[in-house]
């Protein structure tokens, strides 16, 4: 039971610090707000401020417990001393008896479930895989280490930095509780919004629709970030509405902060800034008021939240929008093909048709990883709210902020629009209180955790238990978490691999509990290269089975390059080796040579390393004009060039160009002679040797991984020794 105290302290201290900073920020805006909505908006705005402080501390490597304590105590102390924690302002009319008790009953019932789920040991998929995994790394490093082998570390992490604050005191569950606090704030903000527009029943119904939404409740009780984003975006909408009423210029700064914080929380919220700017510009333009000042203030306030993340990525991985936009900002850390595949998957999640989305996202939830609840099938009814000004505002905000949904059709990516739809739906039928009450009742019944298991797809992401003992640590964390296969694998790795050991895996979750370095195949360009190497002995199409020889009369060159002629939207160009000959003898690779390639110059050395398991790849569809080039330090006689490549058709559509003494490029040969290239050495051993060269000491193979059987049958042929096993997943040590 005592183990709960640091968790609660970590969460509450983080929340109190954020709230205090927010109250300081909003202290001069008293007349605009009801006392409660000020407190709620202060928490959201203060979270943005605390996140920014944490960014600065992380960049300066000052994330130490003492520093965090000082920041928290100073914020709380100064806010209390300055009187900012007092919440003057008008108060809303009390809720009517019926709606008050409806809200209290539903809120209390679901909070019972949600609180204990949030407090229980955190074992969500993405929470363990990267949200808290990165947080754990930052905590150990006391700030941002430069991470170039995990694309998730390059996403904006505004909420994760709040988790970092909490994690230092209460670890994983403290972070999950912080996220849950955003849901509480969101629910009460929705309630307050209804009261602000003079429709408290709409506020109650909207709050209940939001709180009971199964994917929202599940997400909020883990260390994900989607509900926090929803709270930030609804708070932004709320502030804009208040500003529209009051035109208080002091609101412009928090509006800008929240618009920028949306991006800092999640890239998909980048439209928050244009939405906020557009809203303010439209209103001011219609009122014939000056535009430039407010727009500049919003832009600058948002920039303070956005630019640090862009700069961090630009400095660390040469791409301010990493891990996206790799075509615009080519870099050695993320392959374009990875981004293309990632986007492609996220836009469908394997669905055959987008017409499946409505039912998947509301009722089934199996493929889209969660469901909103059947009530959201009534979303088209929300259009009836267009007859009200507030309805138009809500639906416009929902439309703009939800317009990025089709870039990732997971149900979670609808969470930011849930509060807008919830209130709009309630507003649509607000003039029929009995219908609204019936809708609320139906929604509560169908979205109650004990009920929705009857209709959703088994295994859909949901709250499915009430882990009171685990939450209160009456059951040990280890015993509770060991029900999760990923956790057990991680524990096995932790036991077997000594500190400092590096593990390579094709896929694995749960790394937030792993005190070792685990490089996962798809998570960076370098990791993808290692995966490519590891699979080469198993995939014939990867092996350099062809030799393409360009013969030509001997002459001197300043540069030679092999150029791609073909265009293959589905295939990449690759080259295992490029060898240059003078007569019958291969030219030794002179340290004075300069090698380059287009695209992907950073991996060109793999076409000149004499290894059959490494290769330069375009990592994007082959297209005419791509090349691999050698620049000689002095005029170099040559009479033939050989390219060793796999026998994919695209690799044969090449020509040889040379730059002579006149500095002009010309085609040397357009027709290579193609022959089989025998592979005489052991590819398995060579592949493992390459991984070893890259600092890998262990390889983790899941039963479902490609080639898992081969590792199982012939570990000695790979140069591996079984070091640990957990439920069919094997950890091999490189001999």
């Amino acid at each position, binding site marked *: 039971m005592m183990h709960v105290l640091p968790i609660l302290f970590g969460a509450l201290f983080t929340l109190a610090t954020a709230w205090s900073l927010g109250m300081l920020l909003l202290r001069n805006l008293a007349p605009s707000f009801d006392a409660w909505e000020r407190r709620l908006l202060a928490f959201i705005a203060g979270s943005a401020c605390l996140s920014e402080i944490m960014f600065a501390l992380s960049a300066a490597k000052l994330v130490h417990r003492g520093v965090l304590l000082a920041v928290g105590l100073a914020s709380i102390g100064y806010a209390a001393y300055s009187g900012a924690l007092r919440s003057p302002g008008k108060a809303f009319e009390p809720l009517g008896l019926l709606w008050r008790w409806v809200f209290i009953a539903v809120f209390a019932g679901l909070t019972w479930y949600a609180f204990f789920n949030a407090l229980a040991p955190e074992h969500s998929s993405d929470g363990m895989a990267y949200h808290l995994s990165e947080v754990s790394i930052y905590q150990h490093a006391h700030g941002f280490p430069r991470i170039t082998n995990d694309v998730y570390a390059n996403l904006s992490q505004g909420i994760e930095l709040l988790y970092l604050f909490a994690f230092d005191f209460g670890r994983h569950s403290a972070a999950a509780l912080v996220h849950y606090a955003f849901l509480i704030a969101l629910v009460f903000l929705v309630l307050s919004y209804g009261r602000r527009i003079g429709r408290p029943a709409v506020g109650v119904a909207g709050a209940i629709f939001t709180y009971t939404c199964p994917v929202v409740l599940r997400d909020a009780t883990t260390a994900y970030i989607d509900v926090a984003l929803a709270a930030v975006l609804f708070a932004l909408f709320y502030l804009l509405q208040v500003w529209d009423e009051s035109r208080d210029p002091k609101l412009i700064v928090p509006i800008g902060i929240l618009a920028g914080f949306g991006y800092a929380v999640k890239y998909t919220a980048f439209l928050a800034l244009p939405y906020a700017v557009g809203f303010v510009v439209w209103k001011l333009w219609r009122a014939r008021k000056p535009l430039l000042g407010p727009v500049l203030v919003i832009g600058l306030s948002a920039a303070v939240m956005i630019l640090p993340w862009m700069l961090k990525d630009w*400095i660390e991985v040469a791409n301010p929008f990493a891990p996206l936009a790799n075509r615009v900002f080519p870099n050695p850390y993320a392959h374009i093909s990875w981004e293309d595949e990632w986007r492609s998957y996220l836009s469908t999640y394997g669905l055959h048709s987008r017409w499946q989305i409505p039912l998947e996202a509301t009722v089934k939830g199996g493929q889209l990883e969660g469901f909103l609840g059947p009530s959201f099938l009534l979303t088209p009814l929300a259009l009836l709210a267009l007859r009200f000004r507030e309805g138009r505002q809500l639906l416009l905000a929902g439309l703009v902020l939800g317009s990025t949904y089709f870039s990732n059709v997971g149900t979670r990516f609808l969470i930011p629009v849930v509060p807008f739809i919830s209130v709009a739906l309630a507003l649509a039928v607000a003039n029929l209180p009995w219908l609204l009450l019936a809708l609320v009742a139906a929604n509560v019944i169908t979205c109650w955790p004990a009920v929705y298991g009857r209709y959703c797809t088994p295994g859909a992401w949901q709250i499915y238990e009430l882990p009171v003992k685990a939450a209160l640590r009456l059951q040990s964390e280890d015993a509770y978490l060991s029900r999760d296969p990923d956790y057990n694998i991680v524990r096995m790795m932790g036991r077997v691999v000594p500190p400092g050991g590096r593990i390579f895996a094709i896929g694995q979750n749960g790394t937030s509990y792993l005190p070792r370095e685990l490089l996962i195949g798809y998570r960076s360009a370098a990791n993808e290269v290692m995966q490519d190497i590891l699979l080469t002995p198993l995939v014939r199409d990867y092996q350099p089975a062809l030799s393409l020889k360009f013969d030509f009369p001997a002459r001197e060159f300043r540069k030679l390059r092999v150029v791609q002629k073909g265009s293959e939207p589905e295939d990449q160009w690759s080259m295992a080796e490029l060898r240059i000959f003078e007569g019958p003898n291969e030219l030794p690779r002179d340290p004075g040579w300069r090698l380059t390639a287009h695209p992907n110059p950073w991996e060109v050395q793999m076409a000149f390393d004499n290894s059959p398991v490494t290769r330069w790849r375009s990592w994007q569809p082959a297209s005419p004009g791509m090349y691999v080039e050698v620049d000689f330090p002095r005029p170099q006689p040559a009479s033939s060039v050989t390219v060793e490549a796999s026998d994919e058709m695209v690799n044969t559509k090449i020509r040889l160009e040379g730059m002579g003494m006149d500095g002009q490029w010309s085609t040397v040969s357009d027709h290579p002679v193609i022959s089989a290239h025998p592979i005489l050495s052991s590819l398995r051993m060579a592949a493992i040797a390459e991984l070893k060269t890259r600092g890998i000491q262990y390889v983790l193979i899941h039963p479902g991984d490609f080639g898992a059987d081969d590792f199982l049958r012939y570990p000695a042929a790979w140069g591996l020794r079984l070091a640990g096993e957990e439920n069919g997943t094997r950890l091999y040590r490189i001999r």
Partner: protein
Amino acid sequence: MFLIRAACLLLCVLCLAACDRLPQSYPPPEQRQPVAGFNPGPDAMMVSMEDSDADPVIVKDIYPGTGIPWRWTKQEPTVKVLVFSTESVKFSADFAIWDDSFKTTGPLEISFLVNGKLLDKIRYTTPGKKHFEKPVPADWLAGNTEATVALSVDKLYIAPRSGDEYGVILSRLGLKP
């Protein structure tokens, strides 16, 4: 206004500080030497029925091991082996025909198969321990890939009580360099 200008200036300085052009050309790397395959030893392509790690390479028709150095088979006991060398490789099998089952089945005709191709077919007219060994044509195999090695027994002994089917008693099966 001063603050805005100062912020803009600071941002420009930060942006400039971030400019670090990634190298676009490189010298040749350290040259890798061919990795000799692991030294397989004479039994690397043999599957011994007493080995606890034999199970992953058993494809079909071999009863689970019980800790003794042989296992009963069914009609077509098949194993997979990783081929390290294709030159001068021999099919090799050590097995036995049980006296009691022989009384029921009579002489057995056993086919020896590599990658589904018939290498040889022998008629065994007596029970007892048997050893078969015969060179495998090099073009039947490919280096660094798996090959299936199998026996095919023409007649099975059916246990009277359980109805289980039994072929031969297998000790070792595979390829030898």
